[in-house]
């Protein structure tokens, strides 16, 4: 996605719609968006619970 491979969806031994690649391609876009949204939500949650400046200060020697 955007020139960077972040994952893939795979199907082993499909028995129908074998030549319908467009379905997986379309699903990939939506899954990518959902994963990005999920990551951002996690990041926001982490930021709301932790003071990054303090953490940095604590971890630096």
């Amino acid at each position, binding site marked *: 996605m955007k020139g960077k491979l*972040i994952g893939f969806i795979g199907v082993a031994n499909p028995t129908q719609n074998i030549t319908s690649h467009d379905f997986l391609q*379309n699903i990939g876009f939506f899954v990518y*968006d*959902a994963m990005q949204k999920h990551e951002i939500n996690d990041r926001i949650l982490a930021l709301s619970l932790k003071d990054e400046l303090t953490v940095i200060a604590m971890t630096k020697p």
Partner: protein
Amino acid sequence: MRIMGPTDVSIKMKNIDFFNKNYPGGFFAYKADDDGEFVFVSKFLLDMLGYTIEEFKKATGNTFNGFVYPADRPNALGKINAEAPTSKDNAFNSCPYRVKKKDGNLIWLHDEGHLVTLDNGTKLHFVVVIDITDYKRVLTSQSALIACIKALSSSEGFEGQMKTVLESVFTYYEGSRCVIHSIYNGGKKMRNEYERCADGVPSISNLLQNVSTKNFGPFIDSLEKHDYIMVRQ
């Protein structure tokens, strides 16, 4: 509706040779009894399926029941028997079902049938079929895609959303295993995030955690270059 005597049927059928060779769609007739024995099959239908008439008879048992793909048989026969008119002259019944071609692939047919009673009381289904495989594929793809989008935009948790998506993909392709893998650490590592296995297929999710992508070099290289890749044995 009474149209012709039983002995006339074959003569009439010979007279429609022109239509048989040129009609854009398959047509056939079969007896409206338990077996549904074929009395006529058009050349175009045979060409569509890749059979000679002898091969067709052998593959289907020369019956409509044997013609319809087993998984679709109960619905198709049930619908035809329920809708087939026994008293109305101009009523038709229709239903979609799959049939197997000579090469083993399945195609979807749309069936428009008409039940006709001959002079001697014999009942025959006269049927026209067209190949709707591409249409069904698009329709199924759209339905599955809409189900995924609905799941992803729902208030369901992320885990539930991914499982719903995976289930839709699994159902659409009817594969033995469906997976979502993530690639991280600058493309160096990958892991299985979600997996959906068919009945009797063991999970391998535990084996594919924190795996080096180097182990899948050509596979990853192909994914970097293309939106999809197909691996054939």
